[in-house]
């Protein structure tokens, strides 16, 4: 007698894989359509992307700070922060800089292009836990992109937060993103400070380092007010958030109330490819949003 093995379908010891669609989730992506493209600067565009299947679209929800993997078949797949409001179902907004292979090709596509979307992945900014606090949103360069989702969350529940500041630094005025929304933000009683490294002939705002404005903002707070009532979100290049977090840390603001979003190379977004590991922590699972305390405990994070 011989023993012929038969092919078993996939299941796993722990609960994770009980459902077939969870398994499929790994290489499965929602087919989506680029419904609109708005050029924002020379290098960045805002893409509105809609999941084609209406049920999938309705079921898709995310938290501010999470990201999706966007796939252009045959070209590449990469992680992007969702930059739209978490409460609005419909088109996701992704603000993408043409930086490499896939993003440059994306830059050449037009409305109607079909893409693949999977996610949402990763940790988020705990905006609900921040209710009641003054909110400090600090962005450098492309860092404004992941900040836009928490900004919208805060705006939609404006009454639940105290003072809200957005401090945003960019290289030059022409690099500023989402200019068309600044007035709207201000109308929601938000203090918007914008500073550039280098002005141009039309620029009338401040020129210099974002840290100056932050120092001023901290100084404006009276007594221990700042450290007891503030939650901060910092997004930007590593040098920037290094300096900024240092200043905030100095005020005594608890490190658990300062949040950053880190970027690493990712090939899966699902804690398998190891490309995003910091020290030995998966940015895609434990991040991209980390509190500052966790960052300090990650070797080679910054």
């Amino acid at each position, binding site marked *: 007698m011989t023993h012929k093995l038969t092919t078993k379908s996939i299941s796993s010891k722990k609960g994770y894989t009980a459902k077939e669609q969870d398994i499929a989730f790994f290489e499965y992506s929602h087919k989506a359509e680029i419904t609109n493209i708005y050029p924002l600067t020379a290098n960045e565009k805002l893409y509105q992307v809609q999941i084609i299947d209406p049920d999938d679209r309705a079921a898709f929800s995310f938290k501010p700070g999470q990201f999706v993997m966007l796939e*252009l*078949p*045959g*070209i*590449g797949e990469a992680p992007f922060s969702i930059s739209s409001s978490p409460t609005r179902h419909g088109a996701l907004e992704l603000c993408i800089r043409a930086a*490499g*292979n896939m993003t*440059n*090709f994306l830059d*050449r*596509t*037009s409305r*109607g*292009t*079909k893409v693949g979307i999977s996610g949402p992945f990763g940790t988020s900014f705990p905006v609900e836990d921040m209710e009641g606090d003054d909110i400090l949103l600090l962005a450098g360069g492309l860092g404004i992109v992941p900040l836009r989702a928490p900004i919208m969350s805060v705006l939609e529940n404006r009454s639940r937060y105290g003072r809200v500041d957005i401090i945003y630094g960019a290289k030059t005025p022409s690099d500023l993103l989402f200019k068309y929304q600044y007035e709207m933000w201000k109308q929601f009683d938000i203090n918007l400070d914008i500073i550039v490294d280098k002005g141009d002939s039309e620029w009338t705002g401040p020129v210099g380092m974002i840290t100056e404005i932050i120092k001023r903002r901290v100084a404006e707070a009276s007594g221990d007010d700042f450290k007891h009532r503030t939650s901060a979100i910092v997004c930007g290049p590593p040098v920037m958030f290094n300096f900024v977090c240092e200043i905030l840390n100095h005020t005594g603001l608890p490190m658990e109330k300062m949040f950053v979003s880190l970027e690493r190379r990712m090939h899966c977004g699902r804690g398998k490819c190891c490309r995003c590991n910091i020290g030995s922590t998966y940015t895609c699972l434990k991040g991209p949003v980390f509190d500052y305390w966790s960052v300090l405990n990650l070797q080679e994070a910054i």
Partner: protein
Amino acid sequence: MTTKQTFLGVNVPKPRVAFFELSSCEGCQLQILNNEATLLDFLSMVEIVTFREGMTEKSDEYDVAFVEGCITRKDEEQRLLTIRKNAGLVVALGSCACFGGVNQLKNRFNDLNWVKKEVYGDHPIDTQEAKPISTLIDVDLEIYGCPIKKEEVEDIVVNLILGKSIDHPKYPVCMECKAKSNICLFDLGEPCLGPITRAGCDAWCPSSRLGCWGCRGPAPEANIKQLLHICNEREIPMERVMDRLECFGGFSESIEQLRRTEGR
């Protein structure tokens, strides 16, 4: 470039392609014909306008020039300058074009007159030191290998057309060799330049149990010092290692350095 194809709704060009050869064995061009299975697809994806080895028609209007071979004579310099002027993109095809290839072995004597006499006696003959084409013109892209790997060229051409970035592997041949479950040549007592040579050939030679000769040049940050140490430890004669290092010209900088520091 003429646009004739689309991909994901994006217009992509069907480039006019020309092939040229300087001093070489013309093997790299032949490699392109050697992919019988996909040759016809290749021919329909690009428009070949000049290919002396295979066709009579020729044209001076082309988008991409593949240049095989190295420079060893004045007239080749002239031809190369013209190619650079006509082409949008110049691609160095194969190790001769990229590093000088085996042809640069004659440079090692530092005595062209001796070299000429050795082969032609007193008959006058025109030649100069073999040089990679990048010493004369700007090269947009290098495709390594002696010979080139035809699949690699095809991938590169597809990526060129799609406008995808062309990234050569940055890791050394060992990666590909291990992926093929080969026995390491060092286990067999043979030298191999796999640990320091840029991958992309799918460990062609080691998969046939021939130690790598380094035809694709050094991988970024190749640890040559350690490799020499490894060979030394295993009592592999330095001469055999040097023979390989200097064979295709990719390691010429390290060779010079070695000669200077160790008087080899």
